[in-house]
């Protein structure tokens, strides 16, 4: 399949955004984690230091920008983007429609939480740690983000004619890589400590990033091994002529390219694929994991480490997504095979 910039941008950027929203929503859902009580004041009152993990207003806002940019990118792939609103109607049968509905529904808790943070920041009363509304909104945001990425992944995984996508690794990989990107994003935003997130949150996010980097690398390696083992669909099978003998193409149906050969005739050489896979593993997982470990063990290095980790991670995810398209072969290509 020919990789298109608009779709790669959409899945990577919106994956990052929804991943960050997943973590922020999780933080709100868990609610404030209260630390040790302060020393009693003159009136004998002690205060608990309560913080909600992963909750970063700036992270919430940045994820907004990424999700919005991603969705706008996806419109760039359409032939008739003005009618894109129609894509919300067939959620009963179409994963693309379900993704559109989920994507828009997720904006509701995200906007509500952003409004809540604004009110809290500029409001007169401090927020109560026992408030139920942020928790419910957090659960909604978490679920919405996960559902949206799940639907996006299923758009590809449900396509049977593309054997490389109709694999059981595809949906888990999209989900894991989404949260992983989100963790890198929030970690980068957490630094300098105390600016966007408290120091303890930054450390937790770095650990989460390391764990997900390992998980992501493992999933992608298993996926690549699975697609390498896929049997090639030949001319004889596509035409049913293999029952008669061994078939080969002697004349193409047209001398020029057409939509099918242009979109689905893309072939990536094995040796290029191997190199790009190595680059993806390195840039997306290995380098960020090492940098995260560095940032975890040496707080002084954190600011540089987390920003480099995010940059490398995003670059690596772009390469991984490009490969996801380039290495996928469509069944119709078998008819044209020489």
């Amino acid at each position, binding site marked *: 399949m020919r990789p298109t910039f608009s779709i790669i941008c959409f899945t990577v950027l919106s994956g990052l955004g929804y991943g960050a929203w997943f973590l922020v929503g999780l933080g709100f859902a868990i609610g404030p984690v209260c630390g040790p009580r302060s020393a009693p004041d003159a009136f004998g009152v002690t205060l608990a230091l309560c913080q909600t993990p992963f909750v970063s207003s700036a992270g919430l806002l940045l994820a907004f920008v990424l999700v919005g940019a991603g969705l706008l990118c996806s419109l760039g792939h359409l032939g008739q983007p003005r009618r894109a609103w129609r894509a919300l109607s067939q959620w009963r049968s179409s994963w693309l429609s379900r993704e559109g509905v989920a994507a828009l529904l997720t904006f509701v808790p995200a906007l509500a939480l952003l409004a809540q943070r604004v009110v809290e920041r500029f409001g007169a009363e401090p927020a109560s740690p026992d408030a139920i509304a942020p928790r419910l909104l957090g659960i909604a945001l978490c679920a919405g983000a996960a559902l949206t990425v799940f639907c996006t992944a299923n758009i590809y995984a449900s396509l049977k004619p593309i054997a490389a996508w109709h694999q059981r690794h595809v949906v888990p990989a999209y989900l894991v890589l989404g949260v992983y990107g989100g963790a890198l994003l929030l970690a980068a935003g957490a630094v300098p400590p105390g600016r966007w997130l408290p120091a303890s949150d930054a450390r937790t996010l770095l650990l989460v990033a390391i764990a997900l980097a390992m998980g992501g690398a493992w999933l992608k390696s298993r996926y690549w091994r699975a697609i390498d083992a896929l049997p090639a669909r030949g001319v004889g099978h596509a035409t049913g002529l293999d029952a008669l003998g061994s078939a080969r193409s002697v004349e193409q149906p047209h001398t020029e390219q057409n939509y099918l050969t242009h*979109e689905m005739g893309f072939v990536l050489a094995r040796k290029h694929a191997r190199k790009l896979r190595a680059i993806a593993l390195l840039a997306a997982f290995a380098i960020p994991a090492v940098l995260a470990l560095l940032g975890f063990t040496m707080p002084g290095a954190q600011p540089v480490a987390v920003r480099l980790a995010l940059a490398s991670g995003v670059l690596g995810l772009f390469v991984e997504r490009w490969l996801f398209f380039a290495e996928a072969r469509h069944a119709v290509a078998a008819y044209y095979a020489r």
Partner: protein
Amino acid sequence: MTSLPPPTARKLGLVIDLDTCVGCHACAVACKEWNDGGQFGPLPDADPQGAKPDGVWFNRVHSYAVEQATPQGARELAVHFPRSCLHCETPACVTVCPTGASYKRAEDGIVLVDEDKCIGCQLCAWACPYGAREIDARKGTMQKCTLCVDRIYNETLEEDDRQPACVKACPTRARHFGDLGDADSAVSKLVAERDGYAPMPEFGYRPVNRYLPPRPRRDGCGERADASAMREETLDTAKLPGVLRWLDRALSR
């Protein structure tokens, strides 16, 4: 509406005879000509006389050589394979459509695109293993074989002209049109008689169109591996008139 209709009683489709097709492309030309002017046209033709022509047409005729082992050695069978929409019973191209533009008619099973709703996301083209759908780059919508739905019910045409343009144009009668849901129709009988098959059934889309495989050749090769054992012709000499009986004896010495 991209939920599929309940199974249709009428299953209109094509039967394509791979034995008789000579790869002349008359069907492709007739299809393009009709659809350029019909209800679903015009079809795009970018840069037609230039260096990189790019257009949409629905019937793509491939040419293959099938190598077979015979008692006299290896030989190649030329097979021409016209590829177009098979109007499947449970097509994914209909269910993946997010806008309801891709639909299957409940009355006759024809799969169509409503170009007023199509957003050109191309997911239906990704879902079709037979490459039935192409995008009109100017309009930004998808196009496909319509089974000449604007011909087959067209009262302004003569009765026997109410068939798809490709069927009427074929000079070797390699294309047949009819109701494959009716076991007594001419096309259904043809399929039963010639062991017609649908390519790539493993996707579960249940194509309605059928391809008739090349007939077995005189040396027995060309018989499909799953067909019955070779049938030998026997001559009942007792039924022959006198002269031919003498000839049979003379030639058998």
